[in-house]
């Protein structure tokens, strides 16, 4: 039974990140894609905090940045939802594949 170390956190966050990417790439629902983005951002958060904890004890930069991340995510989500609503008004769907009028 090995002691939980930085590597494990990194692996977790990496997996999370990949899930995020995967979601964004495969989901057709805009909201779903945004959730994927959230996953990626959260994996970032995990990274930052873990690094802060293990690499430079006493420094709080990572955690501060993590806070910023959360705020950013919130702002982004807010805007995204707004745009999604707008899209829904116009296209009466949030299926990103149906938003394919602009092409070429």
């Amino acid at each position, binding site marked *: 039974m090995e002691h939980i170390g930085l590597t494990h956190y990194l692996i977790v966050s990496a997996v999370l990140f990949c899930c995020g*990417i*995967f979601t*964004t*790439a*495969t*989901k*057709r629902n805009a909201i779903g*894609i945004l959730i994927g983005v959230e996953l990626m951002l959260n994996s970032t958060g995990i990274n930052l905090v873990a690094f802060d904890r293990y690499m430079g004890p006493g420094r709080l930069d990572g955690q501060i940045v993590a806070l910023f991340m959360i705020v950013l995510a919130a702002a982004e989500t807010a805007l995204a939802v707004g745009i999604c609503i707008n899209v829904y008004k116009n296209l009466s769907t949030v299926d*990103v*594949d149906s*938003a*394919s*009028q*602009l*092409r*070429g």
Partner: protein
Amino acid sequence: MNSHTYEILLALGVLSPFISFWLLVFVGPKLGKPLAGWVGVILGMGVPLAMASYVLLGWWFGEDAASRAMLGEQAFRYHWANLGTVPILVGIKLDSLTIAMYFMVTFIAFWIFFFSVGYMSGHSDEVDGKSKYHRFFAYLSLFAFSMLGLVLSSNLLFLFIFWELVGLCSYLLIGFYFHERVPQYAQMKAFITNRVGDFGFIIGLMLVYFQLGTLDLDDAARIFAEQYAAGTGIFASTFTMFGWSLATIMGVGLFCGAMGKSAQFPLHVWLPDAMAGPTPVSALIHAATMVAAGVYLVARVFRLMTPEALMFVAAIGCITLTLMALIAMVQTDIKKCLAYSTLSQLGYMIFGLGCGAWIAALFHLITHAFFKAMMFLGSGQVIEGCHHEQDMRKMGGLIKKMPVTAITFLVGVLAISGFGIPGTNIGLGGFFSKDEILAVAWVRTFDWNDYSRHEAEHGEHHAASVPAIDSDDDASDNLNGNHKQMLLASDPQHGDSHAAPQHGEAHTASESPRGLKPSAHGDNAHGRAGIFSHVPPMPKWMFYLALFTAYITPFYMMRCWWMTFMGKPRDQHVHDHAHESFMMYFPLIILAVGTCFASYFLFRDLISDASTAATIAPMVLATDGHLHTAAIAAAHHWLITGVGGSFVVGFVIAILIYGRGLGIASAIKNTVGIQQIHTILDHKYYIDELYHLVWVKGCLCIAHIARFFDTWVVDMTYNTLAKLTERLAAFMGLIIDTHGVDGIYNGIAETAIGMGEAVRRPQTGRIRNYVLFAAGGATVVIVLMLLYWGVGSPEQVAMLTP
């Protein structure tokens, strides 16, 4: 008179036709008819003729041989341009040949101009009532200018320039009736055929410029002789083509030009067609002067000719004179008949030059110019009289209607047939010139080995040996009148060959302004002695063909005359219309007199005077009467009589056949065997057809291929390139950006999540594909970078650690 006086006079003679040309071009229409004509006659030819006569008298009677040569050496040169580093000096080649030619041209041309004033007034108005009368004389003046320039040029390049200009004039004049179809093609044919010749000429020029480093006739000859003596330069090169050395190729190349202008065998096709031009033009350009320019050129570059080249020249001449004479036998168009006889006679001249009879050939040139011009004018008179009828079969019996024409024409016929009494020196032009050519040819063919051995022995001072030969000639047979003439003829030569050394020294002493070393006779003689050993005798067939043709010539000429003037009129309408007018037959009379005059006196002496300086070369055969003397000395009597009497045979046969109308002739024509031959001759050996097929059609075919290639290959390539770029653009823009992305990444998505619904709607502009592609791209980039990256080199690490 010093040389500059002569030059200035001659130059004036060249300029005045030029002036009259521009005068007629600009104010011609206002002058109208016949004033424009008279301007042409006076300004275009009167002035030159005056100059020519004055110079001729001064030159021939005012100077002795030495001072003539001296004047030639001192002749003025103008620095025209630099060809690379080689300065091109333009000037006047001042020697007896120039003056003889100059006088001949101006004299004949003057009377032809004169003739034209009357003749053209009836022949210039066909075209839509717009008179081209002045245009005709403008062209004639331009021709006079170029022809005289050609005669005077001392520089090959300038000779070439005027050469082309006379070609242009001939082009313009052949096409004078360009509203008709035939002249259009005739003029093109003439110019392009000449261009083919010029192609060779240019190659010759290149070789001269490149190997001899000059384009001046005299310098070139001098350097050529020196190079020959030293075996350097052009003689050093080992390059050969069809077994010809470079020097030979040079000679042949230059001769190609002559083949074009003088219409020698492969390039003869244009001359008969050229008869489509007005008759005076045929007389002046295509009988007397321009076509003779080729011969003149060969005479001028004679000194650059190797024996092989001369052999080629002789062969071409021989072929031409035979084939054309044969064709002439079956011609029914009076002008065509004369044209072919011209070709045949030109063949004689070329042949003469080829076998070294320099004097004889040029002499023949001049005599021929007189009588052939006269005959053409006569034919013009006939055609005019007969209402533009040219077919001899429709004529006959015209002697009653136009006696003067008939008589003068007969004079011409006699002259060309070499009429004369063998054994005396009574005779007309051809009798002397043609026979002399044959005599030399005979020596070259049969007596050559003895002669050249004899030459080699007496290498330097053959002059000394001449009297000996003379004496034993006298001893051998003094019945031989021809021989006496030859002696007479060769007298000036003796003078020369004695005078030569002094005048040579005189010039080595005097510094010539151009630093040209005057050609001393010694090394040439030495060169000659050397070269005779390898100059081969002529093949026999040449001599026999020439001799044979000597019998044909009188036949077809007499046939022509008889069909035209004697017998019963075959076409009453023509006959009734026939008439002659003073304006036209006056020149005939003059020329007839000229023919008799030009037969023996003056011209041959002039030429033989020129010969000494003009033919200093490895190949000095006919330069001195010495050879003729020897020729006659060695000649068997049958040659004298045979050649001398040839015209009798010819005449008799002709009269026998055509004496009673065309019946016998047509009978013969229709006999089996002859008929086929006749057809072949009538179609001129189908050479025209051949050329049309091979050259005209071939060239156009290639041209169209080229055009096709240009439009459908070269151009297409670029258009296709453009298309490809667009396609590529479409590919990058649409496919990669959208379809491709879909294609690739739907596939990935499929394999990733095992659901193929993404593939079902391969729509474009789908954000998920964008994301996938971006992510994929990023991954690829990262991987590549990592692969490429690796660890830095130790020294880099070292640099990094401070």
